[in-house]
């Protein structure tokens, strides 16, 4: 009996690190999106360079569906342990069938060995999927030729043979019928990862200094920005530790650059004192914090939204900050771009919270528009009487930099007077503390409100933030109820104060967070007094799936 898969196909590739799963992902992502299929992929990896067991989900669909699904339609195991590793997910629908009768025996390694090396088995697997999706043979050939263009002829030819052997095997399979609609508009979409979106946003924000210390899952942004160094006049430096990282970035802003650091929870913890310095010297600073499960080393290569409290409260003393957490690639690009302008305008640190799921997920999205992109620079030329911390109405002092004008630009980690020199004068201390705090009020005027999707006349409101947007949105759409809406926050702090009106309108409020203590719910309670007790939380290191969010919401309605 044939299996029919219509409109939405979930393929999972599983194998050991080093078996080339990522190559399959790379080939299929460009190829499938290029031929007009909506594409989404996300990976779960073990923290090791070789061995272990990793899996990558590829989702090919008729309509845009960039969210993680639990269901597996097609599992391609490149290693014996793969089925055991993913058993729970395969067994979702048709347990017995998939485990026993459902297995179709394709000898990836056998075919690869015929070509002289088992190393090509991943390419055979990629070919199989192309065959199943009935990709045009000529299109496939051209693509593979381009993809392996930099390799020598022998490797290029072997890969081409491997993919075609897989391709014919896929075409010959009668057990599976796949029908997914292609669309022309997808062909002109962008195909990129969360890390790409953040990096392009940083470039669009005028970032010209980036530094970091390698730490999963933030490293891909450091690498991407480093690859842009020459093209976009960026100084990119790997620093000895995260303490050095944050202090360097502050030095860079002081000298007139626009600097970003990229890190994960443990590294950000080391930056706490530097963050506090940023607050004291009223410097701009962009921190990309890609979260992973803690405490301590935690689950280094996995995902969680567990560092919101750290981001909110890191750094001793009182000072304002802005926290953003994009939900889509488009938002990642726009918010990161805007972060630079906001940070420069208000002279406050801006934290961009992502996580492993966000930075490592890839999908197609319409081309980012650039016509409204402005790089707002707030640097002033100084004169002899310049005072870096002059007391002003709104708390923002014009920011000079050394070497531009005749004035001295003095910044001090000690409490200081208007000129930036140390003071222990109590009155001045109060004036300076008030001045720093005043900026908060102006920042609030710039808040981008949360997005509300689903029914306007909702009785149930599902709250989420950051990377879970696409998943929660699809889950609520899937429920098909006219009574539910999703309120997604990408501007986290300061929290928009009118949120209470949205909460009060619902009779049923549910929060979805990828952490164990509902940290965003705490922030809402702190800001509004409203307590959300229906919580959907996940903290096993994996992202939410659309199905489980649907199931959990159903329990509450």
């Amino acid at each position, binding site marked *: 009996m044939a299996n029919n898969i219509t409109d939405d196909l979930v393929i999972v590739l599983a194998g050991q690190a080093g078996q080339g799963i990522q190559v399959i992902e790379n080939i299929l992502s460009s190829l499938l999106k290029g031929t007009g299929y909506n594409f989404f992929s996300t990976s779960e990896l073990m923290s090791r360079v070789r061995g272990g067991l990793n899996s990558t989900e590829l989702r090919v669909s008729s309509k845009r569906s960039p969210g993680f699904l639990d269901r597996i339609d097609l599992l391609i195991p490149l290693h014996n342990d793969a089925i055991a590793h993913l058993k729970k997910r395969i067994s979702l629908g048709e347990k017995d069938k998939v485990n026993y009768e459902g297995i179709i025996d394709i000898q990836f390694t056998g075919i690869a060995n015929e070509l002289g090396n088992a190393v090509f088995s991943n390419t055979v697997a990629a070919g199989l999927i192309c065959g199943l999706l009935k990709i045009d043979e000529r299109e496939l050939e051209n693509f593979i030729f381009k993809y392996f263009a930099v390799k020598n002829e022998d490797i290029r030819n072997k890969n081409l043979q491997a993919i075609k052997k897989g391709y014919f095997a896929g075409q010959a399979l009668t057990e599976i019928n796949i029908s997914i609609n292609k669309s022309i508009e997808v062909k002109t979409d962008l195909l990129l990862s969360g890390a790409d979106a953040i990096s392009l946003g940083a470039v669009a924000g005028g970032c010209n200094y980036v530094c970091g210390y390698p730490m999963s899952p933030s490293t891909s942004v450091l690498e991407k920005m480093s690859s842009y160094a020459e093209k976009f006049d960026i100084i990119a430096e790997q620093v000895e530790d995260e303490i050095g990282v944050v202090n360097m970035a502050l030095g860079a802003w002081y000298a007139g650059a626009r600097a970003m650091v990229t890190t994960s929870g443990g590294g950000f913890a080391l930056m706490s004192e530097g963050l506090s310095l940023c607050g004291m010297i009223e410097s701009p600073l962009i921190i990309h914090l890609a979260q992973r499960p803690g405490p301590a080393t935690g689950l280094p290569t996995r995902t969680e939204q567990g560092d919101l409290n750290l981001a909110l409260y890191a750094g001793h003393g009182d000072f304002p900050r802005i926290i953003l957490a994009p939900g889509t690639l488009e938002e990642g690009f726009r918010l990161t771009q805007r972060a630079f302008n906001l940070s420069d305008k208000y002279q406050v640190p801006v934290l961009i919270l992502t996580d492993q799921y966000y930075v490592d997920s890839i999908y197609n999205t319409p081309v980012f528009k650039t016509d409204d992109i402005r790089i707002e620079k707030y640097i002033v030329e100084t004169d002899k009487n310049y005072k870096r911390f002059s007391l002003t109405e709104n708390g923002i002092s014009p920011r000079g930099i*050394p070497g531009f004008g005749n004035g001295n630009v003095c910044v001090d980690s000690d409490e200081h007077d208007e000129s930036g020199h140390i003071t222990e004068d109590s009155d001045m201390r109060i004036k300076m503390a008030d001045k720093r705090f005043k900026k908060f009020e102006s920042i609030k005027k710039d808040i981008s409100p949360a997005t509300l999707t689903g029914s306007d006349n909702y009785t149930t409101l599902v709250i989420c933030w950051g990377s879970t947007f696409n998943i929660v949105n699809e889950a609520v759409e899937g429920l098909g109820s006219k009574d539910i809406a999703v309120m997604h926050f990408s501007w986290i702090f300061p929290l928009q104060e009118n949120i209470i009106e949205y909460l009060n309108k619902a009779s049923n409020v549910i929060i979805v967070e990828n952490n164990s203590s509902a940290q965003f719910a705490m922030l809402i309670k702190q800001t509004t007094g409203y307590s959300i007790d229906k919580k959907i939380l996940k903290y096993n290191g994996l992202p939410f799936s659309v199905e489980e969010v649907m199931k959990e919401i159903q329990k509450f309605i």
Partner: protein
Amino acid sequence: MGNIFDFEEKIDIAWCPGCGDYSIRKALLEALQELNLKKEKVVLVSGIGQAAKMPQYINTSFFNGLHGRGLPPATAIKACNPELTVIAVGGDGDMYGEGGNHFLHATRRNPDITLFVHENMVYGLTKGQAAPTSRTGMKTPVQVFGVFEKPLNPIALAISLDVTFVARVFCGDIEQTKDVMKKAILHKGFALVDIFQPCVTFNKINTFKWFKDNTYYLSGDYDPSDRTGAFKKSLEEEPFPLGIIYKSDHRTTFEENISVYKNDNSPLYKREFDIKKLEAEINAKV
């Protein structure tokens, strides 16, 4: 004519009367003036400590950051605007203790900056505990049985890291201090000047007299370009040699290795953003 790097009005200096830091300040003010540096092109960078207050008392721009963290911002400031003369100042605890890791790695990058370390072998600001350079046996309110650790040898350490300008002076000799400071500022690449400085309040062992008795000047025929010889010289203690111990010009600087200055010398803040390049990069993702 007055020194443009000094203040016209009288300033309130927080150092103890008789502190060696006053001599270092005098030497630095004169060095800056004699080098004819433009005031707006000089930035002093420091961490925290008595020495790290120096920028407060010089009439220039400064970045007085966190304890131990002077070198990362100093490196970045120079990297973002190579037109600036960047001088980092700190004490032995600031630069060799709390900031030890940054010291190691800043020298590896070799930014064209100068580091003056006031070495008084004690913690002054926190009132008398041991420094990384305290001599073995020194008793303090914390090291109650006496320091047992081996003192850090910054000169040997710097030469081992191939820092291309390594000098030690004693602030009791303001002329030499000033002369070496000037050469260090003019040197291309990371320059370290370790400055012996008596702490009159908390170090009753390593006094002005002790430094005088336990130092000697390098002879006129000493060759600072020989790294092996310099390393050997750096291991000499009590008496410690004074002068330029190692100097070389064989290393490239951080700024020379940054791609942004390959075809354009202008500081980053002067550059314009090219939206066309961004659009091309975005479209490459189609």
